[in-house]
Each structure stands twice: as structure tokens, then as C-alpha cells.
């Protein structure tokens, strides 16, 4: 058996099926899309080769630029709002509180629910006529604050960020919780003997030792934000007036509503490159051993 694992040919044969599947459903479509992105094509019939014109249009079209700006804002919100909350919850849970298992399960439930269900749920919360949020505001005498949360340009973007941030807090919390739990108890005991406070322990021991998992969370949360689609699509469909548009919803409308496969493909290539670049940057700046 040992010889099998050191035999390069055998290894290649074992890896081959996965490699083939990965190539056919991930790599090849990416290359095909890159080719499509150079065409002026309506999805049927023959396309005409137009070089980089789709990309030029993408970076001059105010709608596309707005969508990129939105997704970057969203990525920022994920990193600076979502992850700190997850980290806080994870640290509290890991420091052996009462009913640890119960809280862990409750925080994780939103991750298990389908995003479409979550979007429907929140669109009912935000509903201008009978929504929970407006009813609540009215019942505490703040009826002047009640408004059409998803139907106005200036509130729609923030209102559509909140459900996604909320949904994945539990996911990152669980990853971080597992990271914090896997740190050897001996170190904590030593810190306790030295008289370190809980907060001091968290900042000097737990968080530094969780660095690998924090990096994973950072990458996941960043990429998740850059390619977010389902929740925005169901909640607002990118509207009103493109104020909640992100590159993936714009890609969808371009391809399926206006039949511009070439331009849509250019957007999809942009999303892939954007995710790759940020992953590389994060990996470069946060070094783990």
C-alpha cells in the first residue's frame, strides 16, 4: 500500500476522475466564457469578434461601475461588520458558557435555511404595508421612521446587505469557534496561572493562534460578498433604479433579459478575476506558517 501512495502514476490515476470533473464543469466554462466575452453575441446564431470592446464598455458604463462599487461596499461591510461579530460570538461561545451547544445551534440555523427562503422572510419584514419592521416602529411611536425600505434608492442597499450579513454570521462563527476550541487547554491554563484576564487572553493567545482560520474566514467572506447573487435577486432584483445592483445580478439581466451574452460573459470574467485578485492579496498580506 505504501508503494501505491509513493507511485506517481498510481496517484495520477486516482486523481484523474476528480480532475476531469473539475475541468469540465469549472475550468473549461471559464475559458469558454473568456472567449464569449470578446464577442458581440445574442446567445444564438453566430457572434462577431469585437476584441476588448465589452470590457471597455464595462468600465465606462455607469450602471456597471455602480454595481462594482456596491459589491466592494458589501465586501467591506462583510469584513468590518460581519466578521467582528462572528469573532465575538465565537470567543464567547468557546470560553465555555452555559448552554454552549444550544447557542451554537441557534446561531447556525440561518446558514441551513435556503437563501431564497431568507430573502422572502426579510422582504416580509421590510414590507412597507404590513412588514414587521414598520409595525414595530409604529408601535413604539416612531411612525415617521416607517418607510418603504426596499423601494427607495437610499435605504434599499443597506436593507439588502443586512440579511446576507446576518445569514452568514453563524457560518463564520462556527469556523472560528472550531479554531478557538482546537487550541490546547494547556496554554490557557498557563495564562490563567500567570494571572491574565479574559480579554488579555483573547487578544494575546486565542486570536493570534486562530490566525489560519481567520484568514480562511476573511477569504470566504470577501469572495462571498463579491459574487453575491441569490439574496439580492430575490429581495430587490437589483432595483429600484439599479441602486442595489451587483455585478452578478447585472450579468444575469444582461444575458437573460437583453440577450447580450458577450457583455454578460465579460462581467462574469470580471467577477472571477476580481475574486482571484482579492484572494491573492489576502494571502499575501496575512502570512501564516
Amino acid at each position, binding site marked *: 500500500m505504501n508503494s501505491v*501512495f509513493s507511485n506517481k502514476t498510481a496517484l495520477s490515476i486516482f486523481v484523474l*476522475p476528480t480532475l476531469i470533473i473539475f475541468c469540465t464543469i469549472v475550468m473549461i466554462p471559464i475559458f469558454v466564457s473568456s472567449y464569449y466575452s470578446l464577442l458581440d453575441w445574442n446567445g444564438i446564431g453566430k457572434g462577431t469578434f469585437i476584441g476588448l470592446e465589452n470590457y471597455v464598455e464595462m468600465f465606462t458604463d455607469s450602471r456597471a461601475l455602480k454595481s462594482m462599487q456596491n459589491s466592494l461596499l458589501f465586501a467591506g461591510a462583510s469584513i468590518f461588520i460581519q466578521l467582528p461579530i462572528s469573532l465575538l460570538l465565537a470567543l464567547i461561545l468557546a470560553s465555555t458558557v452555559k448552554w454552549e451547544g444550544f447557542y451554537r445551534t441557534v446561531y447556525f440555523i440561518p446558514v441551513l435555511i435556503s437563501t431564497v427562503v431568507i430573502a422572502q422572510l426579510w*422582504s416580509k419584514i421590510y414590507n412597507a404595508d404590513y412588514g414587521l419592521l414598520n409595525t414595530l416602529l409604529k408601535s413604539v411611536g416612531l411612525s415617521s421612521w416607517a418607510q418603504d425600505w426596499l*423601494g427607495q434608492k437610499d435605504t434599499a442597499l443597506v436593507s439588502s446587505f443586512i440579511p446576507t450579513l446576518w445569514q452568514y454570521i453563524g457560518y463564520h462563527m462556527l469556523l472560528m469557534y472550531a479554531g478557538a476550541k482546537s487550541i490546547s487547554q494547556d496554554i490557557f491554563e498557563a495564562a490563567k496561572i500567570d494571572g491574565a484576564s479574559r480579554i488579555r487572553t483573547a487578544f494575546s493567545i486565542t486570536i493570534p493562534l486562530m490566525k489560519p482560520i481567520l484568514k480562511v474566514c476573511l477569504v470566504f467572506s470577501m469572495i462571498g460578498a463579491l459574487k453575491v447573487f441569490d439574496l439580492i435577486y430575490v429581495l430587490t432584483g437589483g432595483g429600484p*433604479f439599479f441602486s442595489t445592483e451587483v455585478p452578478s445580478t447585472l450579468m444575469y439581466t444582461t444575458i437573460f433579459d437583453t440577450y447580450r451574452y458577450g457583455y454578460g460573459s465579460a462581467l462574469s470574467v470580471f467577477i472571477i478575476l476580481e475574486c482571484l485578485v482579492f484572494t491573492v492579496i489576502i494571502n499575501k498580506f496575512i502570512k501564516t506558517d
Partner: protein
Amino acid sequence: MKTFLKKTAGIVLAMGIVGSMAACSSNSNGEKQSEKGGSGETIKLNLWDQSVGNTDPSAKLLPEIIKKWNSEHPDIQIERTGTTGEQYKTKIKTAIAANEAPDVFYGMGGGSFMQPYIQSGNVLEITNYVTDDIKTKLAPGMLKAIETDGKIYTLPVYTHIANLYVNTELFDKAGAQIPTNYSELLAAVEKLKAAGITPALMGEKDRWPGMYWYDIVAMRQAGNDAVIEAFKDPSKWDSPDFVAAATKMQELAKAGAFNSSMFSMSYDEMLGAFNAGNGAMMFQANWVNAGIEDPSTATKGKVKVIPFPIFEDGKGSAAELFGGGVDGFYVSSSTKHPKEAAEFLAYLSEQLGTKGFLAGAGLPSWNIDGLDTSSLSTLDQSAADIMITATSFITWWDNILPAESAETHKNLIAQLLASDITPEEFCKQMAKLKPTELTL
């Protein structure tokens, strides 16, 4: 211990691969056998449609019609797949583009949705299969409506026209009069608002419900002929008539005619709100009839359908209708059994067209002389009565405009409703649209 673990891991991995390979191969064997097995000669045809909603009468009729066909034609068996509206559009587009279209499928008719597929040859021409017998059964004018450059690709099922739905109970409560012209409409809006009732509901999140409003306003203001001219020559969108139409549209929005939550309300939510009696008016096509007439709604029996009010200064008459497009089924050019598929298409279209009309799914495009229409609901009957008065039809504008222009058109109307742009700016932008590719 370590070597033991490694060995087990290796064996498990290896077995996994063998297992999945075996699974694959046995599957494909099974498929081949079942294809060869059976009666040997049976032809299987796939049918895709978008009728799955609870209140959609076609959703109930389709399985019955297919069951009857299957029992009458043991050698031609139909397999049906239903998918809901917006998803269906995506699904069928993807399937056609990948050359994997089903034998027979539903196509949003009369416009830009099917046009590219007809041009690219993905849809089978069925002119030769449409016998004189079939032609005589069609309602007058329908044969012309389905022809594209003298060729036939589809048969009609039923048609739809958009009218104003008014909740008479709410109008009575507010002491408002049911409007017949624009000033009465504005007066009704004021009265309804004063009584704390939402005058009209609009699900503008989906953008096309708002488009229906602007389009009918433009048709009343400029008249159908001018609209058709503008479709061919978009520069005509920037003319006084269309500016007046856009001004009226914005005036209605500013007067608070529509629900304040319109930009977050979807089409489905709009229907729900109207059926629950939360708004007094709705401008929609007769596919909403069945939902309004449903015994579970608060509005059953209280809703009237009327032609959209005419404009005192407008060129359009009440007999110039919005709608009339022909929705129908198409045969894919990649089908292996064109003759059988066309035969089924004719059967399906006629059966669904006549039975669907009686069940309230749409207005008839087949001859209904011999039919007993006493079972029709009042809403369907009034819609059919309005349709008879028609002097001309213009179907949904997003079906007439090329796909990209249709999107722009809908977005512009949303901006107009939000007073983001002036009526003049709106018309300047409209003038930049592409001309229609259809022969009108």
C-alpha cells in the same frame, strides 16, 4: 496503526472510484435497455410549458388534455414538464441555445421573445402541417396573426387584453365614480385618497406592471396608429403626444394614484393586495380574472372590468385595445418526429384554446360558435365583450421592442414614476430606442 489507516484509506478511495464507475455504467445500460424495451415503436415527445400556478386554469387542463391524447394515441406518448413563468423563460432560452429544446414547447408569442429563434432556425416551420381543416377552425383574423413572412410556426391558444379592474365596493365606500375619462380618473383618485383607500395598485418591482400603465396612457393619448409608427421609427417617440402621455403618467404618480410601496411590490404581491381589497384599481390583462373570481378572495363579485378611461384631448379611442398578442406552442427544429409533433401541437392548441376559454384562462382564438359559454364568469364575459368591440390591437410593448430596448423602456418608466426624469427627458431617451424587428 498508521500503515493500517493508510491501507484502509487507500482501499476506501479505490472502492469509491470503482463504485462510481459501476454506478455510471449500470445506469447507461439501464437506459439503453428501457429504450429498446417496451413496445419498440412508441414515440416519446417532450412538452414544456409554464402553466403551474394554483390559480392558472391551464395548469389543471393540460394534464387532462395530455392524458386524453396519450390514451387515444398509444404509439405517441407525451411527457410534460411545467415550470413557473420567469424561470421558464430562462430554462427554455438555455435549452434552445444548447440545442436541447424539447419537441414541443410554449413560447411567449407575438413578439421579440420567439423572433430570434425563428430567425436562427431553431423553430420548425409547420406551414405544411396546417391543413385546411385546422384553418377553418381558427377564429377570424388569427391565421394572419400567427404568420411570420407568410410562414406558420405556431398555432394560437388564447389571447389576452389588458383592461382596468375596479373594486366597486371601495369606489362606493369613497363615494367615487367609476372613471370613463381622464379627469374623472383624477377625481376618483382624489376621492379614494381622501377616504384612505389606495387608488391603484402597481407592482413596479417587476417593472412591467408599470409599463402596462404607461403604454395604455400613451395609446389613449396618441392613438394606436401613431404608436405603431413610432415602433418603426423611434425618433417619433419624441413628439408632443408622447410628452403629453408621459406628463399624464407622472401627474398620476404625483397625485398619489399608486401605492407608496410600488417600487418594492412585486406583481404577485400586487395581485394579492388587489384580491384582498387593499386597492381600488389595477390595470392588468385578463389572466388575473381567475384569481379575482376565486371563492377565497375578498373581492369575488365586487370587481368590474372596464376599458381604460379615454382622454378628452387624446387621439385614442376606447376600442383601441392593449393586448391581443397570440401566445402559443412551437415545435423544435431538432425534433426527431416533426409530423407527430405538429399533429400534437394542433390538437393541444385547439383543446387548450377552447377549454381554456371556458375555464377562464384567456380569450378565444379558436372558433367558439358551438360552445356553451353560460359557465363563463362575469369578468371573462365582460373581457370577451370588450374584445369584440376592438378596432385595433397593440400587444405588450416589451414583446414588440427588441429585447434591449424593452428593458430600457421599462427602466425609463420606473424613473418617470419616481419623478427621477422629466417627461421631456423620458421622450428623448425613448427616441434612442431601436426600431422593432417585427412586421406590424
